[in-house]
């Protein structure tokens, strides 16, 4: 179950504050990295909501992300719609797509669920990849950023856009935390730990699953609009299952089912990728090895380990947060 502990609050504030401070001192390239990280934070949080708390390991979050980006891009670049209108529409499109996927796949579980989400994600990917009106495999450029001049803010400046992206990441975290603390979120965790029992209690399970996927889709769509505005370009690669897989890796490295962990993972992966790809052309190999190691070591992730360490320091009592089922199975065979 999710509790907004003091450790969590401190960690997310330090993380996002640190990003903001880094952005204000860094050069143009550093700011671009911060924006990358912020978009990835939002996407990873949206995935953790369904995978970590709902137990629904999705391989279509790249598609939700891409749908948000493409709706925003096509509305601003092709139709010339005001970005302030395109943003909520893109978020709603992500939510709608998420709702459909969640509703249709609610009956499946385990590997079948993973495959079903993969199918829906790839369907969206292939559709956009082959749709010439949306630029096909070349992608689409000419995306317009939000115009906040009425606030006296110029979002075409890299620093202001970086701060804007960090603020959106903070909002995404707060939304996810509120959802998880609500009765809805508690029920979702209940479905994860024992779906049979929740059904026996008279619950309409698919509604909760679809609802959770819709909220997750909205956040993923939001992440997509940030990414589209950053480079002012969208490509079908955003929707591919590799993006979804990499997002899952980010969540795992940071700590599945901790909500702060995915944000930590997003920052770690973004900056390490930048550092390591300067040093070696084989950065993916490093990431693969680290991923295998993290899973073999009990799947706590960077933030999970930090939390374990801090709570052990304070009192020898076991941690407050019960782990999702998968980890317990994992431990039994370690």
């Amino acid at each position, binding site marked *: 179950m999710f509790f907004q502990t003091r450790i969590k609050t401190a960690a997310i504030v330090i993380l996002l504050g640190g990003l903001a401070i880094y952005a204000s001192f860094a050069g143009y390239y550093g700011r671009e990295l911060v924006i990358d990280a912020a978009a990835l934070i939002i996407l990873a949080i949206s995935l953790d909501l369904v*995978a970590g708390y709902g137990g629904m*390991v999705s391989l279509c979050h790249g598609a939700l992300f891409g749908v948000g980006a493409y709706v925003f891009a096509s509305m601003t670049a092709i139709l010339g719609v005001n970005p302030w209108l395109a943003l909520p529409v893109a978020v709603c499109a992500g939510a709608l797509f998420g709702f459909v996927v969640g509703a*249709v*796949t609610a*009956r*499946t579980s*385990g*590997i*079948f669920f*993973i*495959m*079903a989400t*993969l*199918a*829906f994600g*790839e*369907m969206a990917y*292939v*559709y956009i990849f*082959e749709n010439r009106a949306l630029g096909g495999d070349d992608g689409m450029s000419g995306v317009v950023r939000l115009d906040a001049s009425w606030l006296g803010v110029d979002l075409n400046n890299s620093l202001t856009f970086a701060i804007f992206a960090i603020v959106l990441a903070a909002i995404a975290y707060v939304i996810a935390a509120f959802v998880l603390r609500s009765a809805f979120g508690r029920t979702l965790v209940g479905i994860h730990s024992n779906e049979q029992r929740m059904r026996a209690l008279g619950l309409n399970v698919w509604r909760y699953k679809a609802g959770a996927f819709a909220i997750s889709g909205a956040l993923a769509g939001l992440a997509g609009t940030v990414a589209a505005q950053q480079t002012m370009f969208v490509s079908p690669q955003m929707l591919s*299952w*590799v993006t979804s*897989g990499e997002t*899952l*890796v980010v969540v*795992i490295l940071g700590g599945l089912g901790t909500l702060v962990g995915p944000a930590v993972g997003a920052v770690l992966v973004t900056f390490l990728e930048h550092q390591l790809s300067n040093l070696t*052309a*084989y950065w*993916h*190999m490093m*990431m*693969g*090895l*680290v*991923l*295998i190691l993290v*899973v*073999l070591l009990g*799947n706590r992730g960077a933030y999970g380990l930090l939390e374990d360490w801090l709570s052990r320091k304070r009192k020898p009592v076991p941690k407050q947060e019960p782990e999702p*089922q*998968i980890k317990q*199975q*994992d431990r*039994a*065979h370690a």
Partner: protein
Amino acid sequence: MSFWIVQTLNGLQLSMLLFLLSIGLTVIFGLMHFVNLAHGALYALGAYVGVSAFVATGYYWGAFVAAPVGVALAGIFLYLTLIRRMRDAGPMNQVLVTFGLIFVLHDLFRIVWGDYALSLPEPALFTGRTALLGVEYPTYRLFVIGLGLSVMAGLWVLFAKTQIGAMIRASVDNSDMASCLGINVDRLFFLVFCLGCALAGLAGVVAAPVLSVTPQMGTQILIPTLIVVVIGGLGSLRGAIAGSLLVGFLQTFGAVIAPQLASVTIYALLAAVLIFRPAGLFPAKG
């Protein structure tokens, strides 16, 4: 008319390639509920080992033998170091570890064999074209079809007629019960895993002369293979046959009849199967 015959043969050839890959994956899936996303990477490994063996021996048949053996050895190594630990770790952890394995193998291919596309020539025995049903068709592709059909027949005999096949079927159906009856399910799984790897290697070396050998070839074939496995039903030979024919023909004819819809159709089919028959068309368990 001849156009359709050529397309049918193309579809059949793609189906056979998919069959060689999916049969290993599906039985591993069915036996131990193990999800091996790295199966595609093992197929690429087969193609690479084949290229190296060709360079070393100068014969296609050297590659043809070396690739399944090499990939099976790699499979044994992976089994002992990684797969054995992950067997009961749940689908998500398996997906993650084998996803990590894809990254590692992909970069390993780049380190050992370079970034450029390699090629493997056809064997001298099967170069040129053969007249068949009034069309000229590349002989090597006919060989691929024939090989696929013979592997299919061989596996059918293995599964349906031999004791070990009966043991595999029993373990897929109920592994607890099978081990109570004295079947060593672990060893069986190990055997099937090696066989699956060898077949993936075989698929790689067979595909190499038709396609080009790149680090990405494994990722490209992975998704269609997974679709075959899920459509057919986990753990069943019949399912793998039906699924690979369905996907192979749908992809080939779709690309000719309705190019815009072709790739979407496959995913739509998968989604439809998962919704209406979540266990696949021919599930191994009754």
